[in-house]
């Protein structure tokens, strides 16, 4: 009767019982526990059995089973903890400078930790308000077109939703949401832009969006129904009741069938209004493409499996019908995946289809989070090193105390506990200070980037407070760990003898290693900041191949540009005007399909529609030909194109000779076009993109317009205000959206500036912490060597000699750090960062050494001031008393 593997109850729980239980009871008690355990292994499996064992082991902890001495022990420990706190407090007060360095260093670095904890907790609280949140999944589409994987999309087709409803078992609810419902809502004379989703009635059964008025079962059923959030209703209707009223959005009239509570801040989807999906079905009735399997660009499908549903079975059913659907497609293959609701905000990066603004909710990839955690951990550890270093360095001062404690009867564990308690006390004191810093830094962090404002609030919650305290205790334990181990090993005999100093040398290597690590990290931080900043500035000042100086880009939205153009041309400050479809050089793109003579050879070229003033206004350099000649009024009539040299190269037009290319015919998006000009290559995309073929065609009034106005004004704000007042006349509903070209470029690279700000901030902290640590060490070494210095002075050493003697050790450590840090940073940029930017400028020695010089300067000042003080001290005063 051999069982498969023999299971044993958890040994620590067993030992726990044996530890607290009365000797007379322990045998049958553990026996009973074992018997139950064996039975549970058979009936409930080993894991559950172990859990039950542990619970029971704690349940047996009763007054009649527990040895009386244990209560005494616990009581004693409490007394001792009181004593530890008292001695720690005295020690902190006695060494004010060191305590100050420790507390301040820890507080500064811990504030980063607090910010990070708040940030992580906020991210974690996303979508937790849904009652069934743990079960809800979203469909992810994996698109493969022309046997080339083009990525994972957060969107899918409406058909997917339908098929799941029909064919998949084990699903409680499915709901389809179609994005990009937006327009100007009109109620009486009140016009307001409104945006939201098309949605189905099942939405309210999947998600927990409580309805205030109206019936959630039917509100989204009929076409032309709309459910408004409370805020949207108030905006549109004021204090009047909105339910049952109608609103007009563009040309359609909708009836308000429900008012729901506002979408909570921590929701990955947010909207002001929901329109019944049946509306979209009605309006797209003629469009065969609407419900197609491959039309997967603007819908998301959420499903709620039934409780205890077999997710594997659901997955296989999904892939089964996906396979069936794919059979009908030629070049496209779509696979379906499930993404749990809680993994949407922090999880895999998914692609959003183009033109889906507002749908891309907050998202953070785990890799970025890990990097942030890593960076924060480095700074915090640096402060912990300070503590460790200073505590061990000052060991001699405390070794007698430990000796006495041990002589009286303290064991290793008691001494360890004492030093841990001291470290935790310091870190808790630091927590108070760092909390104040947290309050100061919080608004700075939130306002650093607009994405940040939409993503987190960093409001204090009870769980956050608990996390802060746990964090502080952990930091204390980490900081106090090495000193605790070190001091607990002290033997009382050594403590009272004079040999104790001999033992100290063994830990010198450890201390040196800690200082080197600290400074290496600090230098890496600061050089990264310096190099990153210089690279960022280079990107902003990059010669895109056209001029952006003093050009204001006004986005006309859906308005015709004519009135605006006329008004602007009458302003004396405006020296030039042009129209275009999009703004280039900031990451916007508009693609087209181009062919030359060979009809099978087509290529994607980037395009823009520009008017005749665009090229001269932006100073594009033409190598051959000229500006547009014809002025067509419709897109159908355009027949001229201006291309860049890359187009000639790509299609080998007239053997790459610009002069001969004029007059050649190409086909763009199926229309025959004549090349009338060839431009010098310029940056159509961002700096990290390679320059590709670009073709400009003529702007026609059918296109949306961005007006570029060259402005020459002594008082820019006044000019902008005047332009804005013109806008207000043309479009009273929508806000004026205009930006200078240089600002737009800056915004396009805002993620870099955010990154540099974060790393810069961290490097500032790292420098402060490391400098404080170094300062502490210098103060300590010079203090302990005061007598030696006195004797050396008496013997005739000069001040210079002494400074050299005292600072030599530190300078060697700093040089070692520099030798590690600088090459490491250089290779990091050379191999990891800069290959992503084909047009980067090389890393210069100057920016590499700026950081090093700054750190060295601070270190020199600290070492110098202290050693100079010591070297100048009067030997008589030092040597007088023993």
């Amino acid at each position: 009767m051999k069982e498969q593997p023999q299971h044993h109850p958890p040994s620590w729980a067993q030992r726990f019982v044996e530890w607290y239980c009365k000797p007379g009871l322990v045998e049958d008690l553990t026996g009973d526990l074992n018997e139950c355990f064996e039975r549970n292994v058979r009936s409930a499996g080993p894991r559950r059995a172990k859990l039950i064992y542990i619970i029971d082991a704690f349940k047996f902890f009763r007054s009649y089973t527990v040895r009386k001495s244990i209560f005494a022990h616990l009581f004693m420990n409490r007394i001792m903890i009181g004593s530890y706190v008292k001695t720690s407090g005295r020690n902190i007060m006695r060494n004010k400078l060191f305590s100050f360095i420790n507390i301040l260093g820890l507080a500064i670095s811990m504030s980063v930790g607090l910010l990070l904890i708040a940030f992580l907790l906020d991210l974690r609280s996303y979508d937790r308000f849904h009652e069934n949140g743990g079960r809800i999944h979203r469909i992810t589409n994996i698109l493969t077109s022309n046997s080339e994987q083009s990525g994972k999309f957060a969107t899918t087709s409406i058909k997917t939703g339908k098929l799941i409803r029909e064919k998949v078992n084990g699903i409680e609810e499915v709901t389809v949401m179609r994005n990009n419902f937006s327009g100007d809502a009109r109620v009486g004379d009140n016009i307001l832009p409104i945006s939201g989703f098309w949605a189905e009635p099942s939405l309210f059964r999947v998600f927990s969006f409580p309805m205030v008025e109206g019936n959630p079962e039917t509100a989204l059923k009929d076409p032309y129904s709309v459910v408004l959030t409370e805020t949207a209703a108030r905006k549109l209707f004021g204090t009047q009741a909105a339910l049952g009223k109608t609103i007009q959005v563009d040309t359609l009239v909708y009836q308000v069938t429900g008012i729901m509570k506002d979408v909570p801040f921590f929701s990955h989807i947010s909207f002001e209004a929901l329109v019944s999906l049946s509306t979209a079905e009605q309006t797209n009735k003629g469009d065969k493409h609407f419900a197609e399997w491959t039309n997967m660009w603007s819908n998301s499908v959420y499903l709620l499996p039934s409780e205890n549903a077999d997710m594997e079975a659901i997955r296989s059913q999904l892939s089964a019908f996906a396979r069936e659907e794919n059979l009908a497609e030629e070049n496209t293959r779509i696979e379906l995946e499930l993404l749990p609701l809680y993994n949407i905000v922090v999880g895999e990066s998914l692609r959003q289809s183009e033109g889906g603004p507002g749908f891309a909710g907050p998202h953070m990839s785990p890799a970025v989070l890990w990097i942030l955690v890593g960076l924060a951990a480095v700074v915090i550890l640096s402060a912990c090193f300070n503590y460790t270093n200073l505590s061990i360095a000052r060991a001699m001062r405390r070794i007698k105390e430990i000796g006495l404690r041990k002589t009286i009867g303290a064991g290793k564990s008691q001494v360890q506990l004492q030093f841990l308690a001291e470290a935790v006390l310091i870190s808790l004191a630091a927590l108070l200070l760092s909390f104040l810093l947290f309050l100061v830094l919080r608004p700075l962090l939130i306002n650093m980037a607009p994405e940040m404002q939409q993503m987190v609030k960093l409001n204090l919650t009870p769980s956050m407070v608990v996390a802060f305290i746990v964090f502080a205790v952990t930091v204390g334990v980490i900081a106090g760990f090495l000193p605790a181990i070190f001091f607990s090993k002290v033997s009382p005999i050594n403590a009272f003898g004079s040999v104790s100093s001999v033992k100290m040398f063994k830990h010198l290597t450890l201390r040196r290693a800690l200082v080197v690590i600290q400074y290496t990290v600090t230098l890496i931080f600061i050089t990264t900041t310096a190099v990153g900043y210089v690279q960022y500035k280079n990107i902003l000042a990059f010669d895109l191949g056209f001029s952006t100086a003093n050009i204001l880009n006004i986005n006309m939205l859906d308005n015709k540009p004519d009135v605006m153009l006329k008004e602007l041309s009458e302003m004396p400050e405006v020296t030039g005007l042009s129209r275009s479809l999009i703004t280039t050089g900031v990451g916007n793109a508009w693609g087209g399909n181009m062919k030359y003579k060979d009809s099978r050879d087509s290529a994607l070229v980037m395009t823009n529609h520009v008017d005749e003033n665009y090229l001269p206004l932006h100073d594009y350099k033409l190598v051959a030909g000229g500006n547009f000649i014809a002025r067509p009024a419709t897109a159908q009539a355009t027949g001229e194109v201006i291309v860049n040299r890359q187009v000639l190269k790509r299609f080998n037009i007239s053997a790459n000779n610009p002069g001969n290319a004029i007059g050649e015919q190409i086909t763009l998006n199926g229309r025959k076009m004549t090349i009338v000009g060839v431009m010098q290559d310029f940056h159509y995309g961002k700096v990290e993109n390679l320059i590709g073929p670009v073709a400009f065609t003529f702007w026609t009034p059918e296109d949306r317009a961005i007006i570029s106005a060259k402005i020459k004004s002594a008082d820019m704000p006044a000019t902008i205000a005047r332009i804005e007042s013109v806008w207000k006349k043309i479009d009273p509903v929508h806000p004026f959206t205009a930006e200078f070209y240089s600002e737009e470029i800056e915004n396009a690279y805002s993620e870099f500036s955010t990154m540099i700000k974060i790393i810069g901030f961290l490097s500032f902290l790292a420098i402060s912490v490391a400098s404080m640590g170094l300062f502490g060490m210098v103060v300590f070494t010079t203090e302990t060597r005061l007598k030696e210095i006195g004797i050396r002075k008496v013997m005739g050493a000069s001040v210079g000699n002494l400074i050299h003697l005292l600072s030599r050790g530190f300078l060697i450590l700093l040089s070692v750090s520099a030798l590690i840090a600088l090459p490491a940073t250089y290779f990091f940029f050379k191999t990891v960062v800069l290959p992503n930017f084909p047009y980067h400028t090389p890393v210069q020695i100057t920016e590499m050494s700026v950081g090093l010089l700054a750190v060295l300067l601070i270190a020199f000042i600290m070492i110098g001031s202290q050693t100079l003080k010591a070297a100048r001290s009067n030997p008589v005063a030092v040597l007088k008393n023993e």
Partner: protein
Amino acid sequence: MKGTNLGEFEELVLLTVAALINEAYSVAICDELSSHTGRSVKLGVVHAVLNRLEEKGLVKSELGEATKARGGKRKRFYQLTMQGKAALVSAKSMRDQLWARIPSLAWENL
């Protein structure tokens, strides 16, 4: 107050000890109680009650032989003492008296 007064659960445990005769140890008592009362009886509770009964002198206990099944640990077997028996008997007779006081006519009409 260590008299013969029995709590409801104490009485049940005491009865089970009596019923199991020579096999009355904690786990067996626990199982027996669970199967007869239909409620899930926790081992820790049974232990505590047995301990209290022993303090009151209603049961006595001794360790049995070591067996392999319990990780080599011996069982503690419980036995009713005379006082225990008296307590059970008095509890029963008290109930019987009360039962006898209910007129059967009134009982059926309830």
